[in-house]
């Protein structure tokens, strides 16, 4: 359903091979494909219109018209336009020359303000600053409690006033507490609001006027749809935020909201939230976001993940074994586990261009269970069996099947596949095996 833009454009341009020249109507078809792709990624319609106009202008220029691969040229243009719109120079969080720096967190209910207040505090603390968090969400039950628990987890103090009803007072007290205790960054968590709730917007404005923040940060859920524009405009009109944190980007949302918010307010996206853990906060990369919005996968993030999780020496050792054809089942199990450490296979596949989209998820689910069984089978073998699979005779096979809760057929299948793999590797050994993990 969510085919990558590349596929769509290939469809549009495939009939042109040999004809040589693009016509106006070819370009129009391509524009429709781009429009659809952006809308499916939740880029707001007004922004889509604005973008397609800019893209069309460039696409009718020489660089596409005279290209032998117009589809790739158009994708390149789209990618560039998206990257340009979202990025430019890398923006960092402004710090006040007269501490404490005050950061006010704002956003809709459920966007992840409280969690990201803590993530940001943790990041600042890791950079050697001395943050304090102020719990000004006096509305949601236990919101102050939540911030306090998170504060304990990351070892950052929290200013809270149990039973408080006036967030402005809490915010002011929080700044005073920061000055008193020598903290240099104050992060003010506020209540979430519905964008049309004027009363709550007024409350936010009152807090802002009271604490005069160095920066106001808007937390936007990556799963937000067309509403992103309305939300951004509402907060922009009310409090003039300075930057955005895009939350929940660890899911499969394509995150067109990032583009919408940036396009209508001009405010930069500073960080992205990539998980529930307090350290899951990363810098924003416009180029990767552009690829993601276009459904083109996120190979760079995949490589980063591999680098984080795979031990380089290990990979090298395995590669040598593979070349020599002496890979054992134990090594194989090791590799399997290394890959799995990076996350569910489905999520990894999602980062590969053209692979990761919805329709494929079901097959991936099945694969995951098969890998479970492979792990179980190898784990049920003795060490000598893993080193020399040739010794695994019929009775051993029955024992392994029983031990792993599988069938003899499945054990046979795995052993046959492994044998084939070994043969293949021996043959490829001299030619050099392209090894992604050895990189």
């Amino acid at each position, binding site marked *: *359903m969510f085919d990558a833009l590349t596929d769509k454009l290939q469809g549009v341009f495939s009939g042109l091979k040999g004809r040589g020249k693009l016509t106006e109507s070819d370009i129009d078809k391509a524009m429709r494909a781009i429009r659809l792709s952006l809308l499916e990624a939740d880029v707001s319609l007004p922004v889509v219109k604005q973008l397609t106009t800019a893209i069309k202008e460039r696409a009718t220029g020489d660089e596409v018209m005279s290209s032998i691969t117009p589809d790739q040229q158009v994708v390149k243009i789209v990618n560039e336009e998206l990257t340009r719109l979202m990025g430019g120079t890398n923006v960092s969080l402004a710090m006040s020359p007269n501490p404490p720096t005050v950061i006010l967190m704002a956003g809709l209910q459920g966007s992840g303000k409280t969690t990201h207040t803590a993530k940001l505090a943790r990041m600042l603390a890791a950079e050697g600053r001395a943050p304090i968090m102020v719990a000004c969400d006096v509305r949601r039950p*236990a919101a102050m409690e939540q911030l306090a628990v998170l504060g304990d987890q990351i070892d950052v103090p929290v200013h809270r006033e149990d039973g408080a009803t006036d967030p402005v007072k809490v915010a002011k007290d929080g700044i005073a507490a920061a000055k008193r205790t020598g903290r240099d960054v104050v992060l003010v968590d506020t209540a979430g609001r519905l964008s049309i709730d004027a009363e709550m917007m007024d409350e936010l404005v009152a807090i802002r006027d009271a604490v005069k923040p160095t920066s106001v940060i808007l937390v936007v859920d990556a799963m937000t749809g067309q509403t992103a524009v309305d939300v951004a405009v509402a907060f922009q009109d009310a409090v003039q935020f300075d930057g955005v944190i895009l939350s929940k980007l660890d899911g499969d949302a394509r995150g067109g909201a990032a583009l919408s918010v940036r396009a209508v307010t001009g405010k930069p996206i500073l960080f992205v939230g990539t998980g529930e853990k307090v350290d899951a906060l990363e810098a924003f990369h416009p180029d990767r976001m552009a690829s993601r919005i276009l459904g083109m996968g996120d190979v760079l993030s995949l490589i980063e993940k591999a680098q984080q999780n795979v031990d380089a020496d290990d990979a090298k050792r395995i590669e040598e074994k593979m070349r020599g054809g002496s890979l054992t089942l134990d090594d194989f199990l090791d590799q399997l586990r290394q890959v799995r450490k990076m996350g569910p296979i489905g999520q990894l596949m999602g980062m590969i261009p053209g692979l990761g989209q919805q329709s494929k998820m079901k097959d991936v689910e099945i694969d995951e269970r098969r890998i479970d069984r492979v792990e179980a089978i190898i784990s049920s073998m003795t060490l000598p069996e893993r080193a020399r699979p040739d010794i695994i005779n019929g009775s051993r096979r029955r024992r392994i099947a029983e031990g792993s809760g599988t069938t003899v057929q499945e054990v046979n299948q795995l052993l046959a596949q492994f044998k084939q793999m070994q043969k293949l590797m021996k043959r490829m050994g001299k030619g050099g095996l392209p090894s992604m993990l050895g990189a």
Partner: protein
Amino acid sequence: MTDGPAEGALGAFAELFGLAAPEPEDARPEPSRRGLFRRLRESIASSQSQAISPQLAGIYQAKMVTDDLWDDLEEALIMADCGMAATTDIVDALREQAAEGRITSGASLGTALTAEITRRLAPEAPRIALGDGPTVILVVGVNGSGKTTTIGKLANRLTELGQKVVIGAGDTFRAAAVEQLSVWADRAGVDIVKQGQGADPGAVAFDAVAAGQARGADVVIIDTAGRLQTQHNLMEELRKVHGVTGKAMAGAPHHVLLVIDSTTGQNGLSQAQLFSEAVPVSGLVLTKFDGVARGGIVLAIERELGIPVTLMGVGEGIDDLQPFDARAFAEAIFSPASGAGA
């Protein structure tokens, strides 16, 4: 239906759960269901930004059916987050009616649009039927969708209808989630079964069902931690919680409600798909519907998966959770803002 007598919100809940309507003297004065949506429409009209309004105004003002009109319609549906596939379906259906001469102006298109959306979303009145033993309701959804708040409001309504409710605090992951639910349980005056943060959510679910049975509860509502649908391990955990609930009581959970935030875009479809693969989702709860967030994703979900919307949260007050009313929903998102066209 639209012009029927104002119906008490509590009465609508009684209908949703298949319970006897509350005695009039028991029902405290509260806004009627129609009144609630009227309020909603007013809030749409007064909202600061109305990106969708030009399209809607264009539709209702058109004297004739033109290509521009169809473009406006398509854009209005897309901007309500209906998604391209559902949008195309709806536009095609209405074009067919126009070809048959049944739509001749923008106004008649508007009427047909509301009818078409109502028809799609309300094939039959959705029910959360209550059985003999405790009826167990499992509430699932992504982070921040509004599960805990929904449970609080639902427990409150059921209590008002004379039902004995037990809540299971199954979100053992998020900091202070148990405390948040406890506050709601206090407000609604219902029992809550809880363990500490980090406890096994399956164990909490099992205990909640067991407690519900032991205490003669009518309804057991189990909260779960928010999880993104792509988090494999957490979805497996959810599957397990569902299974454990069935071990505590045969046939449980009887209903699985997936909570979806109205601001959600096309990812809502992925949420519905992947949650449905893990647990049998029987109904949707559309939260934070405020007129700016239009929740059109439920049309895409209905189209792909046929899961009905059972409840809708239209605000922050304890009375702002309502049984879903397809017609009121269609009118609220696709009527021109007052003053824009008339």
